[in-house]
């Protein structure tokens, strides 16, 4: 037996016209299948509409606030790990490219000697520059300059250290 459109009328919550209501009522008096469906659905609907909202255990918001700190810390740790990973990957790629470029026409020993000589040359040149500068200045100026340079270097080192510490332990606030 075809139970359409009666099943649709029973289960869809659209308003039926008086004529359709009459047809449905007549059908329900003769069809057990549709009558059972109608009674069942009305019972289910009653249960659904009369079941109250489930409540969380007391202190839900406090638990959220507590978990917020833990979640933020976890997020910061992930940021640090990601940062280190990207830096390492970047350095690795740069090193790889450099090695590939250098080894194309030089031996490993040549590269090491060249690197060391460049580094030592740079340090010597810097020291000579500062020595000449201090010698050319008169009176207390070299000492003042030395103090200023040292202070600047210390402040920059502390600033860098603090930034790294903050990034590692506090993370970056996205907001």
């Amino acid at each position, binding site marked *: 037996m075809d139970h359409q459109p009666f099943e*649709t009328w029973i*289960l869809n919550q659209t308003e039926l016209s008086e004529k359709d209501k009459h047809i449905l009522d007549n059908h329900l008096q*003769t069809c057990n299948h549709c009558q059972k469906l109608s009674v069942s659905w009305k019972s*289910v609907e009653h*249960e659904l*509409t009369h079941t109250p909202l*489930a409540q*969380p255990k007391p202190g*839900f918001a406090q638990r*959220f606030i507590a978990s917020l700190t833990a979640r933020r810390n976890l997020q910061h740790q992930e940021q640090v790990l990601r940062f280190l990973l990207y830096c390492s990957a970047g350095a690795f790629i740069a090193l790889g490219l450099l090695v590939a470029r250098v080894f194309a026409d030089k031996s490993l020993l040549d590269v090491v000697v060249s690197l060391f000589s460049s580094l030592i040359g740079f340090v010597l040149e810097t020291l000579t520059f500062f020595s000449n500068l201090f010698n050319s200045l008169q009176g207390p100026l070299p000492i003042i300059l030395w103090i200023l340079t040292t202070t600047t270097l210390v402040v920059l080192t502390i600033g860098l250290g603090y930034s790294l510490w903050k990034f590692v332990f506090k993370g970056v606030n996205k907001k």
Partner: protein
Amino acid sequence: MVKNLEAEWLELACQGNDEAFTMIVQTYQTPVYNLCYRMLGDAGDAEDAAQETFWRAYQGINRYDRQRSFITWLLSIAAHYCIDQHRKRRLPTFNIDLLTQEGVPDGAPVPERVVSQREQDHLIHSLLSDLPDQDRAAIVLRYWYDMSEEEIAQTLALTVSAVKSRLYRARQLLAKRWQSSQPIVLPEERSPHGSPAF
């Protein structure tokens, strides 16, 4: 008044004010928790899912479209999270035995109201447990939150016609489940040509 306060909290929360967000959590904890509970069927899982929902909302509050209802946005996050959890687990989601034990300690006197509430919970969970995830979400949003088909479509990211067909299919399944669990005795068997027994 409430709407103004809500808008103010939202504004402050967008600026990173944790106290304002806590007020939002306090206001919406019950609807969010209820959706998670009806979807997952376990109080512990529902608590975790509701907490995760608020965390996701906290992280993404700057992406919230002010043209939409805030509760619809929150419920959308919760519904999608619960559906994802089901997909990941692929395990039986409703533990009826646990449900019947929940809330009352062993040996404690059980008031009639609590028993009745637990029975109702048991019945609802056993009915909902057979539904596919999105159909269950549609039913919960329709009957606990009184959402229209358009609102459900917006919340679940479906078309209105998909919501209509899901609701129809879910109602059919629920009615069949009811018939099999609680056999219906009709007043009188009628023949097509017999007189109505009224």
